[in-house]
């Protein structure tokens, strides 16, 4: 065998299996998703080509799509503000080389390694009106509440999810921001201090601008995570979300696996993908323009 053939064989051996798996189980279904979204299909009888009809129905103002999207946006914004604020604050405090920095950094990250299902069940128990409910037990024994508060009632479950999401996500963003802060050279701070800048001034005009790209990345993670939100809703609603709790993913799931409306469900997934794509591309553009080199 010639040297050249040998090298080609090597490349085929090293690239072939993963390219095959990736094409068959990621790329092919991606293309099929776009195809399905243009049909009416119940999974059994032949699919009927309907063009953009599914999208027209989804984007109709009366459609549940906007309700679900609204819930996704709520579950991004409401916890997101707290997550960003707290993660920045904690990262800033820990960055000042305080005692126990390691302990705080390691412990704050704990919830991020627990599965979303376990977190959802943990918070079901925290909120529970049964004998288990941590908060209701405290309200009863310490504040003498007579009746248990039904925190996770479908009509206001989304509000109850806010503390859960903050609790489960803040640690990751803190570690991310802390890494960005540690990456800023000390000489910048020293120069600012020599000029007599206050701590607040240093944070706003040095720390924050120089970690802007990581902050943007963090915001993109938050938005994309919020758009895909599924697990906790599904677990807390026992697989039957109501119109006041559906998110895009759960709506897609219900349309496909309960109403056998596969074209419609897949069209929701396609729109979800486009939203994720737009958010990511827009943030890339913003970063290219505003990136500070140092």
């Amino acid at each position, binding site marked *: 065998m010639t040297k050249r053939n040998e090298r080609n064989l090597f490349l085929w051996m090293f690239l072939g299996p993963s390219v095959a798996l990736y094409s068959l189980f990621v790329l092919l279904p*991606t293309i099929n*998703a776009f195809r*399905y979204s243009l049909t009416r299909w119940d999974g059994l009888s032949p699919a009927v080509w309907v063009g953009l009809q599914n999208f027209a129905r989804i984007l109709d103002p009366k459609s549940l799509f906007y309700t679900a999207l609204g819930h996704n946006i709520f579950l991004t914004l409401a916890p997101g503000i707290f997550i960003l604020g707290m993660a920045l604050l*904690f990262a800033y405090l820990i960055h000042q080389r305080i005692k126990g920095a390691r302990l705080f950094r390691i412990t*704050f990250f704990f919830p991020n390694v627990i599965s979303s299902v376990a977190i959802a069940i943990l918070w079901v128990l925290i909120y529970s009106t049964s004998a288990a409910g*941590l908060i209701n*037990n*405290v309200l009863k024994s310490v504040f003498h509440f007579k009746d248990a508060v039904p925190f996770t009632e479908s009509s206001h479950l989304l509000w109850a999810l806010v503390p859960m999401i903050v609790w489960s996500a803040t640690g990751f963003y803190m570690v991310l921001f802390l*890494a960005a802060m540690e990456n800023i050279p000390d000489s910048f701070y020293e120069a600012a201090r020599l000029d007599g800048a206050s701590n607040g001034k240093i944070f706003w005009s040095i720390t924050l601008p120089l970690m802007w790209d990581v902050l943007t990345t963090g915001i993109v993670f938050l938005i994309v995570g919020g758009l895909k939100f599924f697990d906790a809703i599904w677990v807390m609603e026992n697989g039957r979300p109501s119109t006041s709790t559906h998110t895009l993913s759960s709506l897609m799931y219900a349309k496909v696996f309960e109403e056998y409306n596969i074209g419609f469900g897949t069209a929701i997934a*396609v729109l979800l993908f486009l939203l994720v794509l737009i958010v990511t591309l827009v943030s890339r553009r913003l970063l290219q323009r505003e990136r500070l080199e140092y």
Partner: protein
Amino acid sequence: MKSIGSFLKYALLIVYLIAVVAPMAWVFLTSAKSTQEFYKNPIGLPTLVTAPDTATFNAFAENYEKAWVGSNFSRYFVNSVIVVSISLILILLLGSMTAYALARFEFRGKNFLYALFLAGLLIPMQLILIPLFFQFSDMGEAMTEFFAPLARALGLGKLTISLHDSHFGLILIYVAASLPFTVFTLTAFFRTLPNELREASLMDGASEYRTFFQVMLPVGKAGLVTVAIFNFLGLWNEYLFGLVFLSDDRLKTLPLGLASISMQAQYKSDFGLLFAGLVIAMLPTLITYIFLQEQLTKGITAGAVKG
């Protein structure tokens, strides 16, 4: 002034530390209470801590036995171990081979291939979920037909192959879906390794294969560990694909098993079982994290610095 500021700083951090740890500590402590004790004292410390004796220890052990044996948590756990470990081995093997070829070789279509894997980072799992569901039905049928003559020849009768309700099917998806992140991270990593190592090994007469497996992989261990942790956490906790592709209770992974047990346990008010089950579900990743947190933090840091 300075001391007030520093007090406030610690107060904030310690309050949040308690907020993070308290719910977890509550689950661990409550899992040690018998049902009677639970109703008498739902939020306080369990007697196992305050006044331990044989009876309270037995109640604690009974909760875990109920969860581990009586409610199939041992089976869910083993299923998770099987699915995640096989997936991880394949992801690391295939991902590192691909990343190495992309990082260290020049060939036609290389940039296109790299961009193709990169595009996968943007594809939400929700998009491929439904088409995969039907693709698996078609592939199962095709494979059944393909192997039918062989099955007849071997006297196996009618052999039905299905990718639904099969660990094999789930592993295929997990591996394929984890490749973009793995290839992206490892390609960047292999690019940082000195090329002299590879050249020296080839000069010594080692083949490309041997150079990769015996020289480059051991040197690249740090990068492999980082991707392994991220993939482990993601797959061990994965719920959506499991929900769609595994309906047989005997095949369920931990998150799926936990979700169904939790419904039954809440219905029966069996809180000992529920809290013990939660602990079983939480412990593996927590322990992994405590041992490997340094590498995990480094991984996030590297990502943050690259932006």
